[in-house]
């Protein structure tokens, strides 16, 4: 059986938007994500993590290497790969409920079914009572809950998350991380979660791919064998395995940040 999401020998170059100088963003990336697995990709800023995600989302064409979901080559965006962006991606002119149901609406799911699916996901992310609100009336954390629910409601095969909590405040971030963990238990969705925050990667990932500085390579893979049910911030900080894994990832990332060449 092959993995759910496969990245093989993926490299990427692009000319810098302003200077035109060639940027070598990704170098021979190999990643396999198993069905139901939660993979975190962590690396210093500018390591090409977002480039990787954009390629997997189908928003950025690539030439070298290949990427597959369920054995089908990724060429352009598709509903089998749901994406949660960093911020400002839910539509301001749609209410919470209509944002969350957008994927189903696009697919032509009848209204009655859509409504029940939407309310299921509204409950899952804890937005009951906010169905008819518009995004500008919500806090940053709530907007990201809507974004997560919108992606899940479309029921993708793989969920790709691009630093979804980078723009929310620290308190909210902790809550959202625990919620994503809870949602992951409930939906068992195959997920690739991109972040620059070491704590976040160690807290959420079943495996953590640490990337090197540009050109981005997979520098190390760190296993975190803590059952998802035990991943609660107030307990996990006392868990020796968590602390060891986090310190290991931190050391690997720090080497990249401080490396001078």
């Amino acid at each position, binding site marked *: 059986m092959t993995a759910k999401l496969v990245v093989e020998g993926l490299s990427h170059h692009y000319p810098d938007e302003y200077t035109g100088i060639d940027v070598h963003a990704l170098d021979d990336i190999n990643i396999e994500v198993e069905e139901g697995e939660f993979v975190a990709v962590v690396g210093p800023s500018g390591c090409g993590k977002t480039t990787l995600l954009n390629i997997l*989302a*189908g*928003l950025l064409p690539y030439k070298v290497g290949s990427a597959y979901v369920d054995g089908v080559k990724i060429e352009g*965006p*598709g*509903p089998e*790969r*749901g*994406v949660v*962006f960093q911020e*400002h*991606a*839910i*539509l*301001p*002119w*749609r209410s919470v409920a209509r944002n969350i149901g*957008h*994927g189903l*609406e*696009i*697919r032509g799911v009848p209204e009655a079914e859509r409504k029940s699916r939407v309310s299921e996901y509204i409950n899952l992310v804890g937005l009951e009572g906010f169905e008819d609100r*518009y*995004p*500008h*009336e919500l806090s940053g954390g709530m907007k990201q809950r809507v974004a997560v629910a*919108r992606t899940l409601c*479309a029921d993708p095969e793989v969920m790709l998350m691009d630093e979804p909590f980078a723009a929310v405040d620290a308190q909210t971030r902790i809550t959202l991380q625990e919620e994503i963990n809870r949602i992951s238990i409930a939906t068992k969705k195959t997920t690739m979660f991109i972040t620059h925050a070491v704590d976040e990667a160690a807290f959420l990932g079943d495996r953590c791919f640490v990337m090197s500085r540009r050109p981005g390579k997979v520098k190390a893979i760190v296993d975190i064998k803590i059952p998802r049910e035990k991943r609660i911030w107030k307990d996990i900080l006392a868990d020796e395995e968590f602390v060891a894994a986090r310190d290991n990832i931190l050391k690997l990332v720090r080497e990249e940040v401080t490396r001078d060449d």
Partner: protein
Amino acid sequence: MTNNLTDRLNRFQAFWRHFSGAEAINNILVICIILYIWNFISGAIDNPARYLPAPDVVFLSSFDLFHKGLLPVYFGETMARLVTGSFIGLALGIPFGLALGLNKTISDIFHPILNFFQSVSGIAIFPIIVIWWGNSEKTVLAIILYTAFFPVAFSVLSGVRTVPMRYVQAAQTLGASHWQIVKDVLIPGAMPYIATGSRLSIGFGWRAVIAGEMLAGRQGMGWMIFTGQDADRTHEVILGMVVIGLTWIVLDRYLLRPFEADTIERWGLVQR
């Protein structure tokens, strides 16, 4: 002592701002001041009937014109022209702007031509239209339509182009087709510009109606003020100006602005 006074003044101002109807009272105050100055000047000059009839004379003449039925007829004709002309102008301008915003080839072809005609104002194309169609209803309508077309077309064009790429990408990753992106993302995203552009176009259209009626019409408010000048009926000229200005304030405030508020502000696309 001075502090106490400023304090009280501030509190009074805060109270005044929050007092419902304070704005209306302010407006009435300003109008009263203008009327007072107008009345004063009118009383101070020779032959006010020719140069500046007093407010009450103008006001009374409106009764006369109402009584003869002229004012309602002229006003109705002008409004009918505005509605027809700007409706057609918007109906053509909005889709044209959208097409330009959505398709680079169309935009490359039409943009220079659009720019050219936008700079040739309605008044500048008047002579050629009169040569074609004479002093007719068609001429007046053509001018309104021409004037209303460009502001909205340009606004919609820039509206489509300012929709953040993120929104398009988000819809793409949900599996949206080309048409679904246009319908669900680009058109609603351009709504603030569509609303503002429409308001602009109707505003320009309103000026064009009056100008058109003055130059080529045989009826309407423009015609009324134009003939008023010829016939030495200055009170009718001023009355016409007042009606034109007031009509726009009412239109804008009770029709166009609420439309804008209802869609755009609710979405939080415009910060107030």
